[in-house]
């Protein structure tokens, strides 16, 4: 069970609660969208809820809580924020272009043609 220091101001506790609930709620909605939407390219979008505002709110909550508890500024969570904001878009872009290439070489007519590829082959691709 969680032990809360007695001198924690009430407004900090409320702020941390709101931020934690909001961030985890957004992450949950993001993965719900991952389950609900019907094609891969649409499914790319919802997880970014978790990786932008979701993680952001949890990091802010952690910063606020530890700053209040240790009564000194604790800001090293900024590092995670920097890494996540730089790395998630790059990973997603790589993944989307890989998926496009796979769909395209499989001869899926619903995706647009990347300009730097040869003509599609008719044979279907293995999983």
């Amino acid at each position, binding site marked *: *069970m*969680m*032990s*809360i*220091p007695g001198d*924690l101001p*009430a*407004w900090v*506790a*409320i702020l*941390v*609660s*709101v931020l*934690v*609930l909001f*961030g*985890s*709620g957004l*992450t*949950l909605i*993001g*993965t*719900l969208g*991952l*389950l609900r939407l019907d094609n*891969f390219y649409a*499914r*790319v979008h919802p*997880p970014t809820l*978790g*990786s932008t505002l*979701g*993680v952001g709110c*949890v*990091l802010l*909550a*952690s910063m606020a*809580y*530890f700053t209040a*508890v240790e009564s000194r500024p*604790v800001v*090293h*969570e900024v*590092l*995670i924020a920097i*890494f*996540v904001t730089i*790395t*998630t878009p*790059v*990973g*997603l872009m*790589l*993944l989307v*272009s*890989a*998926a496009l*290439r*796979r769909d395209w070489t499989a001869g899926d007519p619903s995706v647009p043609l990347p300009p730097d590829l040869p003509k599609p082959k008719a044979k279907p691709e293995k*999983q």
Partner: protein
Amino acid sequence: MSAGTILVWSVTVAEIALVIAMALAAYRMLRGPRAQDRVLALDAFYIAGMSLILTFGIETGETVYFEAALVISLLGFVATAALAKFLMRGEPIE
């Protein structure tokens, strides 16, 4: 109900929500249907896991959890990038 009780309950609720989020991502990872869906689900899975570890940090008041979250944020990206490269060309390193 004091503010401290609200904090305890909301952290617990947040942890449950994040565990459900990880379970949903894991379900998509198992179901697929294609390889890119699984990689995308892995990406969402580790982001939710990182948030869960950060809320564990708030719950226990330990700063050790921060380092674990930092390592997850770095290794998760490397995993996604390597898997995406693998899907693109059939080999992770060219």
